[in-house]
């Protein structure tokens, strides 16, 4: 797709447009949803769950979404573009010197990005602090979401956050684990079990099933943080 094909943003506002938006970055028009593990979870969150819009990007009472797994951010940028945070005409220059859109997102450069990421294992601890900061300011309504990868959970820093958030009862904190079986050392059911052992409410769902994702994202979990493990096709399958 060429830049002439770049359309106004309101023509790119649905799930069906996401492959085309990703194609603007990759130069591959046939870029399908299956090529990116995070796409469906990101879409359901931004389309139906997160209470944040471009107009509310600085509202202290907005929901926070922190992309911790910062590598492979095309799906994230595509969703941000479809939702009007990022201009569509930024996408073709993805990764170039003058582009705000790097191969890892930078919150200082990307409208709507709550954190910069790339180094694994930073988002969950920052999300814990964000949840605590909202609570300390009496902002009881906004929820905090963080997306991590299954192999990202190898990083020990996540476990400091997981082990703290459960006993601390941080029920505004939500983690989405995109599980594409990319961890070299893992046991079946291990991800949810580790969160549950730390006192989290946990559910494992099909990471391509929008209704299942939505139900899991919106299920009540009073007094406990929530993790949704979204299982998708194995990375190396």
């Amino acid at each position: 797709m060429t830049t002439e094909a770049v359309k106004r943003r309101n023509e790119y506002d649905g799930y069906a447009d996401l492959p085309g938006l990703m194609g603007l970055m990759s130069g591959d028009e046939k870029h399908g949803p299956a090529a990116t593990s995070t796409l469906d979870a990101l879409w359901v969150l931004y389309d139906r769950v997160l209470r944040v819009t471009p107009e509310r990007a600085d509202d202290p009472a907005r929901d926070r979404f922190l992309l911790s797994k910062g590598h492979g951010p095309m799906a994230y940028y595509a969703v941000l573009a479809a939702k009007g945070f990022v201009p569509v005409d930024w996408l073709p220059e993805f990764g170039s010197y003058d582009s705000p859109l790097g191969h890892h997102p930078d919150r200082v450069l990307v409208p709507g990005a709550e954190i910069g990421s790339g180094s694994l294992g930073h988002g969950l601890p920052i999300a814990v602090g964000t949840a605590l900061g909202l609570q300390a300011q009496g902002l009881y309504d906004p929820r905090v979401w963080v997306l991590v990868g299954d192999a990202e959970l190898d990083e020990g820093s996540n476990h400091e956050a997981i082990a703290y958030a459960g006993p601390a009862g941080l029920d505004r904190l939500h983690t989405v684990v995109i599980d594409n079986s990319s961890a070299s050392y893992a046991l079946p059911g291990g991800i949810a079990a580790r969160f549950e052992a730390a006192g989290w409410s946990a559910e494992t769902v099909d990471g391509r099933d929008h209704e299942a994702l939505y139900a899991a994202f919106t299920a009540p979990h009073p007094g406990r943080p929530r993790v949704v493990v979204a299982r998708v096709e194995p990375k190396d399958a």
Partner: protein
Amino acid sequence: MDTMRDRFAPVVSRLLEEDPRVAVVLAEIGLAGFEEAQHRHPDRVINVGIREQLLIGAGAGLALTGLRPVVHTFASFLVERPFEQVKLDLGHQDVGAVLVSASASFDWPAGGYTHMAPGDVALLDTLDGWTVHVPGHPDEAETLLRHAVAAGDDKVYVRLSEQSNAEALAVDGTRFLTVREGRAGVVVAVGPMLDEVLDATEGLGVTVLYATTVRPFDSAALRRATEAAGTDVVLVEPYLAGTSTAVANDALADLPHRVLGLGVGRRELRRYGLIEEHVTAHGLDAGALRARIGEFLGQRARVRV
């Protein structure tokens, strides 16, 4: 005399009352001092357990919501262990915090090398935009803690130590103070090194500058001092020797000059004992300093015994 660390919790507890933006983040260390403050402000006095990556990450998250986090533990566990969190969660995320360390280079020598952090300031020097305060007295620590918390969303490091000078000076959170004027060279004494430096340079005819805010480095004060005292410069720092040599060189880049950087040695001593014994082992007692400074200045120093 009480210590800088004794002042930390009372001062920050008062700041919690005065400023609703202030939040304290701890990793067990120092929690006892905040018992009352935690009772009064349970949402703004946060203990994350023995989890130092979370300590910094959670501090950054608080800052992202608009709070002013004051983050505290021993220097080794505040700067060295979670250094990538300091670099990314604060610097790269473009948020501020006040990091307040205890234990310094060898405040607990019997605790051994695991609790020694002579490299903390040098590590922060690899990053952009940090203010570094090194108070030399509990009263100065109190002043500099207040400066640090009041510094908007700046990234500020406050290095508390058991080592202290006998008297506090009127530090302002920015500039070096001129403590003694001479013509035979300039000695910059950092924080708790001042008393030893004043003893060591008695009669040497040198200018002594007192630095408690070392980053940004007060280059203007150093240049002014060299106008009368010449461009032989000695830095005496309570952390890794040579930490400020590069910034002193930069301050004098257009002038012929010499810089001697004294401080804590790199070599691991594998010794326990007392603070004074470590001061001596690193050549930072008045006698050793006098010999090293005198040798560096040579004929220029008017040595009177």
